[in-house]
């Protein structure tokens, strides 16, 4: 019974691994991923305001949030966007987070 329980727990762990993974330009780390990437750039001069918005994923079962550019810009009162970066975090594929950073004035 104990062996059956442990085997089931192990199988469940394998099942949910990588469910919360993200893709990056440098590929994904099996154990941990923490990268910052550029998303977009405009012709506007580099802004001095910064707005963020994020999405989180837990075990690939629940994904919530709002990482839209509109929300990130709205959070900082940005009306003229200069560029957009993002940060992606994943821990053994069971926890993932995507954060967008909008810069502008």
């Amino acid at each position, binding site marked *: 019974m104990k062996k059956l329980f442990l085997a089931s*727990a192990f199988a469940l762990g394998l099942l949910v691994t990588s469910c919360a993974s993200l893709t990056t330009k440098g590929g994904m780390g099996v154990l941990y991923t923490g990268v910052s990437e550029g998303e977009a750039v405009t012709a506007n001069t*580099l802004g*001095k305001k*910064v707005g*963020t918005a994020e999405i989180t994923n837990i075990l690939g079962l629940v994904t919530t949030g709002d990482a839209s550019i509109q929300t990130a810009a*709205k959070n*900082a*009162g940005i009306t003229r966007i200069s560029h957009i970066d993002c940060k992606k975090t994943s821990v*053994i594929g069971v926890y993932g987070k995507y954060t967008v950073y909008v*810069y502008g004035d």
Partner: protein
Amino acid sequence: MKKFLVLATLLCCMPAVRAFDPSKQLVIQTFPEGTVVFVNPSEMAAVKGTSTQRDMQYDVTANTLSDSVSFTCTVYTGQPLNADSAYLRTPASVHASAIELIYCEPKSNGWISRVRFYISASRLSSLLTVQTAPHIVFGATPDAPAFTLSDKKWDERRRVLSIMLEVLRQNNRQNR
């Protein structure tokens, strides 16, 4: 099998037990005119007995072109936030700053307000020498939304904000 499960459990706990690294909380951008430093969003706990509904999220932005540091905050209240000033209260002083409203809209059973206020870098620097966490209060009424930090969280915030101010000082020095 048992050893494998123990190892897997320890591996999963690794991210949680890493020592706090203040520099990981900062995003630094350099542009031709100067440097922008952004402190990632964090939370301040709501003070019980005030009109706020939940903890406040806030982030901090500063740049080398201005002496002011901006705090942009998300406040959840039962009614639309009716305040024109934010007060930073320590045991020894009170500092008032005018509030700039970014937006105010209904959410769930209440209202969400996104506001910004400014504090000078020198004033912030002196505030960071205080051991006790300050209270941030939006408005002057007795039940005005108020927020603070635990001693441990305040200590972490002091380290992050001190590094932010040092980045500004160093990059201001380079631009002269």
